[in-house]
């Protein structure tokens, strides 16, 4: 039994999963009706549905981030790409039909990713610095597009993407699931996963084995850019506006956190898409919980920080060893 427990607690997914369950339990006891789901006009409503709906932009970005981190990189420009693509889609909607706007946003995301990828893969600029450029400049570009104002969107079809319902569930959930499944299938059915993990673990050996690291780096930053664009469309359609300053602000930090909580190491190598899913759900549930149990606004960041630190500590094998040793000593002393 204890062997069994040890194996489970060492699994990458155990602690974030346990934390998520614990968080839901806390909600169950403190917030009446947290698990309650009602049906209005054939649509499902409730806190759980709300969490699943809100997590989607974060999840989509975190999936792209997982691939970037797997190859030992980082992309801190995702929030800015989100803002640019949201602004691009919103402004084009004023003059062109919906498919063009969506396509335009995705292409902009692709170009942003390409830019990052070229800087990193071919000009060998460190990922943090290279993406910092777009992070800083990006919001400026977004402001240029919106003309410094918050663009309101008046297109029912576009708003459906972020606000509509399909078969009872919010439409955004389907998009999130689709992105997750596509990337999962690509990982399982092509050599992308193998090559990424190989490059992230040892770039020189991978190069010697015929893998072209530059190409792979370019691909992952492009994927990350497109994921950010999808998130940009979701966010802007959900609030029916494009806000160059605040759309997706700090989302890069939550995304990185979701990836790391999900068990993917910042040093690259093995990556866990399922872990990222749990990580993103955990962060969103945490934010929702903090608001709904009525923690004062000035305290929210502190509470969030404490919980995240706790989860990260529990994930660390070294920390668990420390705890085991001290509890063991206690037992010896008591005996």
């Amino acid at each position: 039994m204890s062997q069994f427990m040890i194996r489970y607690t060492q699994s990458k997914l155990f602690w974030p999963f346990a934390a998520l369950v614990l968080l839901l339990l806390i909600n169950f006891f403190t917030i009446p009706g947290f698990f309650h789901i009602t049906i209005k006009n054939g649509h499902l409503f409730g806190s759980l549905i709300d969490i699943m709906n809100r997590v989607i932009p974060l999840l989509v970005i975190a999936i792209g981030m997982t691939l970037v981190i797997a190859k030992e990189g980082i992309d801190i420009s995702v929030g800015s790409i989100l803002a640019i693509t949201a602004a691009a889609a919103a402004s084009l909607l004023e003059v062109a039909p919906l498919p063009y706007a969506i396509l335009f946003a995705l292409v902009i995301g692709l170009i942003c990713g390409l830019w990052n990828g070229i800087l990193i893969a071919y000009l060998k600029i460190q990922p943090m610095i290279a993406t910092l450029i777009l992070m800083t400049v990006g919001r400026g570009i977004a402001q240029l597009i919106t003309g410094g104002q918050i663009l309101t969107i008046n297109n029912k079809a576009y708003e459906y993407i972020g606000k509509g319902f399909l078969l009872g569930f919010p439409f955004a959930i389907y998009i999130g699931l689709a992105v997750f499944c596509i990337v999962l299938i690509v990982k399982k059915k092509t050599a992308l996963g193998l090559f990424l993990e190989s490059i992230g673990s040892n770039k020189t050996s991978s190069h010697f084995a015929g893998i072209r690291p530059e190409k792979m780096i370019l691909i992952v930053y492009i994927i990350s850019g497109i994921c950010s664009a999808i998130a940009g469309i979701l966010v802007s359609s959900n609030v029916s506006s494009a806000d160059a300053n605040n759309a997706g602000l700090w989302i890069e930090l939550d995304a990185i956190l979701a990836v790391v909580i999900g068990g993917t190491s910042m040093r690259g190598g093995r990556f866990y898409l399922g872990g990222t899913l749990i990580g993103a759900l955990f962060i969103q549930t945490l934010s929702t919980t903090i608001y709904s149990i009525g923690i004062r606004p000035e305290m929210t960041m502190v509470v969030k920080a404490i919980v995240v630190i706790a989860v990260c500590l529990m994930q660390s094998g070294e920390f668990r060893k420390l705890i085991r040793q001290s509890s063991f000593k206690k037992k010896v002393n008591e005996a």
Partner: protein
Amino acid sequence: MNSDSLLVAKGISKGFPGVKALSNVDFSLRKGEIHSLMGENGAGKSTLIKVLTGILKKDQGQIYLENSLISPASAEEAKRLGISTVYQEVNLCENLSVAENIYIGREPKKNGRIDWKEMYRKAEVLLKEKLNIEIDVKRTLSSYSTAIQQMTAIAKAVDTSSGVLILDEPTSSLDKSEVQKLFEVMKNLKSRGMGIIFVSHFLDQVFEISDRITVLRNGQLIGEYQTSLLTRNELVSKMIGKEWIEPLLSQKKHAANISKKNFLMVKGLEKKGSMNPVHLSIKKGEVLGLAGLLGSGRTETAKLLFGIDASDNGTLVIENEKIHSMNPKLAIEKGLGFCPEDRKTEGIVGELTIRENMMLALQSKRGIFNYIPLKEQKKIAEKYIKLLNIKTPDMEEKIENLSGGNQQKVILSRWLATNPSLLIMDEPTRGVDIGSKLEIRKLILDLAAEGVSILFISAELEEVAACCDRVIVLRDRYQIGQLEGEKISVKNILELISEGAGVVESVHD
């Protein structure tokens, strides 16, 4: 217990899940002796050393240091007790200076601040007195050769050790004169009463330097012997556990099955500052050797052929097709394979499993979208684990958990899986035990018999002489000569290298 015993281990046992790495092993080190620990990969040498230095916890047994019972729980504790270790791979900070590396964590202080002058002075004195080398200790470690880096690690270990020094494969990256220098240092330390445990795969070195030899096999103690009373054949027999006949080593291949057609032809291929023009050709089924001393341009030539380094000049022709700009992926597509010299940084992908490591080259040959189904992957991995006798409980084991020889076999499998027409092997037998060494050599000959061309690079000239149909000799990054057929011998290669000085100069003019 003997009064001059320094470090004694009694009845040491250590098991890992599924393996008994050491069972009831005794070991004793006396003051003022050099004691070699011998055995094949996986015999338990590293485990024993890790137990002695506190990195691994023993399951059973006692360790005595100068007749008092010790049980070091960590490497730091062992160091405090006076047991210092230098590992095969240099564990130093390349971006710090030599002096900083030696005194890191115990810097001389003055008024609470680091006394840099004193530190540099002490480092210089230490290196000069104990190791007899004079270098600028203020320069960063990365600016020095591997040999100097190794010496720095030894200097640090000697300085912190009070009695026991463990050298785990210290010579594998050193050339002949550097090895001699190290041996002088070891003799010097020995005369001061220090006990040295020496681990090496080089039999000659073991016989040259050690006073006694302890042999392990499959985690068992085979025995402890006086070096002067042991012959090479006896030692090897004890290590591999069967009768050993030396001539097997010099088994020659028969040149009969070499095709007349060239597989690869190179004219004047060069990279300025790295390698001067190379002219060579390899026939199908031929084993071509590249011989020369460390830094003679062997690896550089191989990297040019495989497209890891871009050439500035010259032509490369593979099967009558001229290749304009070579890169590893193209090389693989053209049927080349390359087992690099530096296994740890250029060969293995440590975090991945054995199976995944084997798939990399074949997968990049087939392309990213043509994923090899898991079933096929497992079949390939199973095949090569069996064929090359790779010792592992499972193909899903991380490759970094394997011993050096087995890692090398996985890398070889990676290339064999691509069905190569030309396999470039850069020091395939370095750091590999004698049993695996023979297996790898036999593999080379078998492959050649099947029509695969081999470019074989090795610092061990006996090996080059034994395996190759033709040998190209390099010196100071120039190609200086060639030996063929009966003329290939260690003596002739050495002669060519020493005569080569004149050739190099004439090329300069």
